[in-house]
């Protein structure tokens, strides 16, 4: 069973996502900062488990864009999806240039989340 890496600095978002993903039958690493995400991805065993990454754009210390830069720099080829409350085309374009496969704007439904997971993990 693969795992999903979900990054958002809002703890309630992580709690809700945990609820949604478990009801869809997925397992996930739910983390509240870019830094923790880099620690997980630096662990080869954990990295191999992860088949899709969801990340937020607006986060303190390490923003979503900075995390994407780190992912590229470390040559990590896991599909990344932006999940954000910011609907600014410029910001989304920046993320696209940094390699995101897709994006989803909050509030999104459990079904939309499921469709993206299915699409990018060949589940």
């Amino acid at each position: 069973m693969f795992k999903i890496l979900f990054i958002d600095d809002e703890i309630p978002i992580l709690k809700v996502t945990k609820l949604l993903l478990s009801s869809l039958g997925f397992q996930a690493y739910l983390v509240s900062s870019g830094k923790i995400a880099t620690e997980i991805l630096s662990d080869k065993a954990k990295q191999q488990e992860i088949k899709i990454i969801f990340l937020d754009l607006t986060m303190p210390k390490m923003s979503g864009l900075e995390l994407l830069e780190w992912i590229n720099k470390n040559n990590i080829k896991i599909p990344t999806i932006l999940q954000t409350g910011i609907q600014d085309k410029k910001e989304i374009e920046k993320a696209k240039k940094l390699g995101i496969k897709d994006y989803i704007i909050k509030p999104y439904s459990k079904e939309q989340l499921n469709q993206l997971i299915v699409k990018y993990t060949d589940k």
Partner: protein
Amino acid sequence: MFVSIIQKLAIEFNNRLKKRNYNLNEEKGLKLSIEYLLEECAVMSIWYEEGYSVDVYPSIRNEAIEYCFSVIMSQHYNHLLLPAGVNFKKNNKQNSLVSELVMQKILDIMPGHVYWKDINGKFLGCNKRQAENYGFKNVHSLIGKEDKDFLKEGLAKEIKANDKKIITTRTEQLMEEQTSVIINNKWVKKWMLSHKSPLIGESNEVIGLVGISIDISKQKKLEQILLSKTEELSLSLEYKTNFLNMLSHEIRTPLHIISSIVEEMKQNISSFSKKEIDNILDILSDNNKRLIKLLTHLLNSANNAKGQNTYNITNGNIVDTCIGCIKEFSCLANISFNLGEVKNINLSYDEIKITQVIRNILDNAIKYGKSDIIKIKLEELKKPKAIVIKIENTGNNFPEDEKEKIFDNFFQGENAKNQQNGIGLGLSICKEIIGMHKGKIWVDNIDPQTVSVNFSIPYV
């Protein structure tokens, strides 16, 4: 006899003015004509000395009148009419002298400054305007002088460097340069748009340069105003884009939480335990409060902008207000309170609004601070008589250029960027409220790791 010639010329000139339908009464027209023609005595006397008699005059009279006409028109009516019939063919000497005077006159009436210099920067000639602007009574007084003889060293050096470029590269150039001119006996800095070309001698060598300059100080000032306004506008646009992004984030995040929970509970409510439901209800309640707080902030800000906030100023105890806020935030931070040497703690203020100021500042200190230690200190100001409330926390210092901007609507400083829950309205609301109390609000960097947001409320 000479005066009578001029008189005759003046009358004829005036008739021509009338024919050309210029709105000029006879007396004024005649006066102008005579005045100008008397000024032209030098030209007339050359003709006279060269042996022209009154009888000869009529043959060149037309040209002379045409010339005078054009010059007067340009000086008094802003019409530039070229001297159409200046065509003297009597002899070469006279021709050359008159042409030189005519040329000088043309240069003098030209708008702008005309000058020519030798290879060392010495003025060889110029128009009247150029000489007068540098404080010389006539053109001859400027000839032989260099810019450094009357301009400040720095300016003269800059001009010399520009001139050197023209001479060494043998290419003409259009440039904006600064100079000083005399206005009402005072040197005033001016911006000139100068076109400078090399003067080439008979053996194809550069022998100097010729320049034409126009005063563009007014345009330059407007340009600077325009530039600063453009900068202000683009900054304001940036603030607003950031604001909309943060607003979108601030609304969508709690909405996402609430809608996801509601949907999930609707589908699977039976699978949740009592403990899980309590936990979920807490999350729902927190996010509901978050949306209400955001809405209140936005409405306050909109009311501030419209000047529609009403203030209820009463006598109150500022210590009680501070303690109330400390209690409210006690579960989020470790807040200490120091009354210092303040004796009179009774002030006239709107308690609800000042509470809002303290809340906003504490909220920021918790959000952007590096630890949960916050100190509230009170101080008494003697001039003007006021109480200062200082709220200190550990955090990155405010950059100097942000110290005032952080109180602008939608502004988010470097420290606040990428942080959650901020839309850049909190401190602008505080500024508005403190302003209504006739107090001041400002920030200080106490040491490299400590910052302080302070505000004063005057004793009435």
